[in-house]
């Protein structure tokens, strides 16, 4: 017993080093393998507060660009509004039946990274604004990612520039689907994998979100086809998609909540049994 104590006291520095290193390594491994790293994430009061202060200074430098984006979006929406066909739906008797399907919340990006192998964004909306996990995040140009962690006032978004991200997407010209991933190389390109060999693919075609996931509505823009190649197996395409969004410069984003999500979930779970 004496010897054990002696050993511990003699090597206390090394043992503490080993302990701390193993804690750090386990946190690293957990963040690489587990979908949601629970403990070390930037959606908390300390980091949110610091990033909030920083953002309140930083945002003044992007006001002009932000204004341009808003004007462009207003123009687009107004155009849609003016061209809306006037439908008199006579079958609609009960007005409460006509409920909205998506709830939209605006949020500011407090922290954005794009040069790491796994990138996350911190937004200034949290549980207090009824933001939950697995809600979609978009801008007027296209998709950004999915919320994966929330605290009281802040939330963290798994960016599409993250190797753990996987989002259902499809071609605009046909209904061939694939899954959107990122290879960690360039913040301008993402990859659309497992697209059927029979899909009609042309460079410059648009890629949009698919209707299969209950997170994003169908038809939100993602990017255009830059190049494509056949997979090693030979039956599927892997497509390089040039993003509509400039992921390196994000100011205000929209959080989408699908109000029918629980219904869809229950239905899908039922059919699994």
């Amino acid at each position, binding site marked *: 017993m004496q010897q054990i104590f002696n050993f511990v006291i003699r090597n*206390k*520095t*090394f043992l*503490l*080093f080993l302990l*701390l*290193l193993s*804690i*750090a*390594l*386990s*946190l*690293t*491994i*957990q*963040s*690489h393998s587990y979908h949601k*790293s629970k403990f*070390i*994430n*930037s959606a*908390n009061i*300390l*980091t949110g507060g*610091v*990033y909030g202060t*920083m953002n309140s200074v930083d945002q003044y430098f992007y006001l002009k660009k932000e204004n341009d984006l808003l004007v462009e979006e207003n123009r687009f929406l107004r155009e849609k509004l003016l061209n809306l066909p006037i439908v008199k739906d006579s079958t609609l008797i009960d007005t409460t039946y006509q409920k909205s399907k998506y709830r939209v919340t605006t949020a500011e990006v407090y*922290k954005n*990274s*794009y*040069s*790491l*192998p*796994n*990138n*996350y964004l*911190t937004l200034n909306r949290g549980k207090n604004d009824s933001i939950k996990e697995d809600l979609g995040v978009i801008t007027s140009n296209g998709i950004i990612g999915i919320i994966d962690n929330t605290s009281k006032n802040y939330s*963290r978004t798994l960016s599409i520039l993250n190797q753990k991200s996987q989002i259902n997407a499809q071609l605009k010209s046909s209904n061939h689907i694939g899954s959107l991933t990122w290879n960690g190389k*360039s*913040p301008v390109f993402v990859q659309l994998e497992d697209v059927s060999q029979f899909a009609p693919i042309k460079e410059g075609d648009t890629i949009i979100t698919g209707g299969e996931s209950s997170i994003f509505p169908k038809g939100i823009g993602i990017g255009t086809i830059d190049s494509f190649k056949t997979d090693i197996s030979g039956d599927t395409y892997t497509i390089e998609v040039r993003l509509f969004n400039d992921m*390196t410069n994000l100011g205000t984003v929209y959080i989408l909540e699908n109000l029918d999500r629980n219904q869809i979930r229950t239905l899908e779970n039922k059919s699994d049994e």
Partner: protein
Amino acid sequence: MNNVTGTNIVRFILLLLIQVVICNHINFLGYINPYVYIIFIFLFPVREERLLFLFISFMLGLLVDLFSDSGGVHAAAAVSLAYARPLLLKSSFGMLYEHQSIKFNTTEIGSLLSYITIGTILHHLILFSLEVFNVSEILLILKKTLFASIFTIILSVLLIILFSRNRK
């Protein structure tokens, strides 16, 4: 003594803030960021308790991780650097370290440079190996280590010289 503790606490907070507010967002040429918070580990008083030193380095790394959503990569790299520091000091400063009389303010610039260079490369190699976490991407790891190290070394040396008193 009290003065030294105060200086180190201020240095800890300042370097952490500089790191997460400015340096993490430089992205020079797309991906190169300096990691200047390791200056704290370089300049920590030599005669202090080593256990405390290891623990503080770990906390510093963990806080940087917290801000940059990177799991525990900075904590692992920082604690390794802290553990290896006596070895680096011995190889760079030799006799001065044996006599426990290093004053970073008055050392030769050559020894200081070699000390910081070796330390930075060690730290960055561990950092990027864990961050990429893929042995087949070894070239990417080495490339990132090289460029980020150059950036960090230049900035660290400049900051240390700039903020050290009574250097001639």
